[in-house]
């Protein structure tokens, strides 16, 4: 395996060169065409919304009779700092889940260079299998008291098995035959896979919304940590997400298989010449991504306690957004992107938009998430923390 390590480090140098190349290619002078001017205008407008919104928010903290907001919306009220903290914690825990899902997008994009649109469904399958396990356990009386923790572990185990095998089967059936075909073909296929899985769950388990059984009280109680009041489930979500992230980091950076994954991400062909079993590595990538999504699925179930066949769609797209925000192929970036996205979409509507006099701003949460995606791609297309892709995938 020493060969692979030195080979990877050798590639690092090449990669820096490539990055500089693309940045040099992308370096453009001042706007020249109409499109450039329009994009500049768009950036200016988006940044002014952020700046003015924040300004109006700060103003509201001091003077509840904020004329800026009153101009447009006479009912605008300032947000208390407690509320902000609450929103932040909610955003953080939701963002942690986005981050966990985003890891799968990021790894698959890094290795195969395509967006696995169906990854959101892998997450949904995790949440759904968690629902089935937890209701069964609840019926048997194991979803409370001392049995709760072992029961959750069983549910996690089931979700891991279901999500991992879903991801692996997906790769085998739908994506492996398409390696090397034009870029958009696997993407379109993955849309089909996503559609198929969603509707499979609908026809097999009926389309209604399913509720997780109620967790014991100590899970839903509020705990005060560093002047933040945090619900028990949210603490659990944050802890589990951090642990999974650490585990993944260890796996990718410290194990042989992880090194093989990185090598395949750099250059599939050369990696196979170095004696790495590319197929196996790709399967592992899908499996690990699926496992992360499965964990996220259970966490989702514990936090929101409701799951439907379409649960995977929006979190899936947002997790992709998180991956892009953090820089595709960059695992730390994916987590950071998830957390930023989660807190941004929780805070921005009420902190930035409400003070500007937009009523019902919290309905615009999803719109905020997608706007963030557009903003990041406009301002820094390689993500906040830099992409890690092979030269081919950047093209």
């Amino acid at each position, binding site marked *: 395996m020493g060969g692979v390590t030195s080979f990877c480090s050798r590639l690092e140098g090449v990669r820096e060169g490539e990055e500089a190349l693309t940045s040099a290619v992308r370096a453009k002078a001042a706007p020249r065409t109409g499109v450039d001017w329009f994009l500049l205008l768009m950036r200016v407008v988006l940044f002014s919304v952020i700046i003015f919104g924040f300004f109006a928010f700060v103003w509201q903290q001091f003077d509840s009779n904020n004329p800026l907001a009153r101009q447009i919306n006479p009912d605008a009220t300032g947000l208390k700092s407690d509320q902000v903290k609450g929103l932040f914690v909610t955003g953080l825990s939701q963002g942690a889940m986005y981050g966990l899902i985003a890891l799968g997008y990021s790894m698959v994009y890094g290795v195969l260079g395509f967006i696995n649109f169906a990854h959101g469904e892998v997450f949904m399958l995790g949440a759904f299998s968690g629902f089935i396990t937890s209701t069964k356990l609840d019926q048997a009386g194991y979803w409370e008291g001392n049995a709760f923790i072992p029961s959750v572990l069983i549910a996690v185990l089931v979700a891991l098995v279901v999500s991992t095998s879903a991801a692996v089967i997906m790769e085998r059936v739908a994506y492996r035959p398409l390696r090397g075909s034009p870029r958009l073909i696997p993407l379109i296929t993955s849309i089909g896979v996503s559609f*198929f899985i969603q509707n499979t769950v609908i026809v097999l388990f009926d389309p209604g919304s399913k509720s997780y059984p109620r967790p014991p009280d100590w899970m839903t109680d509020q705990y005060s940590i560093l002047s933040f009041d945090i619900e028990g489930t949210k603490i659990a979500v944050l802890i589990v997400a951090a642990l999974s992230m650490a585990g993944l980091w260890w796996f990718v950076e410290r194990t042989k298989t992880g090194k093989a994954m990185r090598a395949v991400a750099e250059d599939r062909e050369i990696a196979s010449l170095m004696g790495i079993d590319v197929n196996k590595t790709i399967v592992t990538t899908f499996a690990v991504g699926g496992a992360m999504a499965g964990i996220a699925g259970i966490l989702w179930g514990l936090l929101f306690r409701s799951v439907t066949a379409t649960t995977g769609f929006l979190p899936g797209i947002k997790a992709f957004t998180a991956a892009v925000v953090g820089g595709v192929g960059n695992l730390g970036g994916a987590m950071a992107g998830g957390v930023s996205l989660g807190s941004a979409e929780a805070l921005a509507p009420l902190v930035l938009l409400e003070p500007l006099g937009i009523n019902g701003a919290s309905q615009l949460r999803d719109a905020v998430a997608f706007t963030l995606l557009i903003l990041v791609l*406009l301002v820094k297309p390689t993500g906040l923390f830099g992409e890690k892709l092979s030269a081919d995938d950047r093209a």
Partner: protein
Amino acid sequence: MSDLISNDMTEDGSNELVDRGAFDLDWNRVGRMGALAALAMWFVSLSGMPVDLDSRAIIDPDLSLGYLALVVIPVIFGWLVGNEVVLEGMAATKRGPRDVVAGAAVGLLSGLATAILLVLINNFDIRDPLVNWSPDLLSLLTFGRSNAFGIFVWLLLSAVLGVAGASLRLLAPRIRRAIIVVLVSVLSMSIFQAVIDDLFGAIDPLIDLLYAKTGGLTRQGAIVIAVVSGGLSLTGRGRIKAARDDYAAKTGPERTRQTAIMLAITTVLLIVLPFFTGKIINELLANVGIFLLLALGLNIVVGLAGILDLGYVAFFAVGGYTTAVLTAARPGESWPDWLPHTPWIVALLITIVIAAMVGLFIGAPVIRMRGDYLAIVTLGFGEIIRILFLSDWLNGFFGGAQGIINIPAAEFGFIGEVSGVSPRSVFYLVLVFAAIAIYASWRLERSRLGRAWMAIREDESVAEAMGINTVNAKLMAFVVGAVLASFAGAIFSAKVGSIFPSSFLILISIIILVVVIVGGMGNILGVIVGAVVLIGILGGPRQPGLLTEFSEYKLLIYGALLIWMMLQRPEGLVPNVRRSRELHQEEFLQDAWLKGEVDHDDGTPGDGVDPDGGTEVAPA
């Protein structure tokens, strides 16, 4: 195009044939196929399809759509197990009893799976998560009799069907084709019952002969159709092919004339058709037309320019909402009173302008992105637009979740008006716009802009180096697509009379994408076929198709279809020659190389073409 995909045995006899014993099989493969067939049986049974679709008869007492969904599985896998990749010049296995054995084995395995399922349902109850684990399914699987009877019948029937599927390969291609034609004709005559009822309702004896009172073909009807279609297939096949080749070979004015005649006949038929069909069918035709318009627009964006726009529904929504806001008496309370509500046709013109502007607005930021990022970002835009229409913030303009209601009919002076009350009028309106869209696609494909789009699809950076302003060309594709979608939106709002944000889910984008892909990307005829077949038979997201019973399963089928198309026929059912070459590039080149069709270097000795400059230049 079928010769591009060499998954079938070569039939030109160029391969050496090896005879192998009846049991000299690749048992691994048989086992795999049998397992897949078994899985498929379970999946279909537990999806609830057999029970739900049992009410729809295909041939009155004998076969319902529900049973058909099950019995087709052994046939398909029996056929598939005989699939063999045959390379040019390699020895192939001779067809024979071997295939029958394999088919029987696969069929038997699927039958076994059904029998096991039957026993399991009888003894365990896991109806809690699996809603279709029901007594209904059990009684369907046992044919309403005892369990032992059910087990026996499924084992026997599946084995027989597996053999039937496998033995299709043993038949001469002519006969095989005839059998497939017969099956497809019987099935489609049954599916199209509503249409045929409307068209020939006057000829009572014919309808009585063909169809049972309770729906589905009668036995004698099925036999008549089978005999007629089989006979036609055996005798007429060659003629159709000859006529097509003849048409393809023609050039110049004669071809133009023939095309014009065909177009004229189609037009007349389409104009006359709605007078004979009833309200339900006309409604269906109108829906097909609206989706066709959308698909034609997306075809320009995806098929020609190669931009995967998943937020395409946004333009449909913008078209619908703009028209609604402009024509409805009171769209939302914040809407200024001084704004006149305009007649539909004026609203349409404004809609076009606004859709084009939204096209530019969405297009500008995404146009420089990588193709796959673009797909997700446009999807994001699609959601943003729907969320904005839904939001309280813009409630005063667009009515939020309550939408806009009381949208008046589209008035066309003395010609009449178009509204949902009269689906026929909607159909005519759609027909006009579909004709415009088809004409526009056809013209653009053969123009400077169309060539630029294709070049961008092929290789964007080279296209730019060859002097094409890729940003402008791609924006133009966005705008043209947006305008076509806005037509559909404008007609939709006049037709339905009310619109809600929930009419414009991302789902619609994906269904339109399936239509374009199933028909054939970049191919106008393919898109038309795709829209008619998919929307007509299965139905749109909310709109029922001919198989109304399918409504619960159509999205599942769309998903499966999308995967299958991408894996097996990315060029679509009606392929565009160039597009399919692109998608099967390697196979194509390989085949051509094997057949010696690739152009050889002209300078090589033995090649007839003499390089004209070759002798003038003194070799160095």
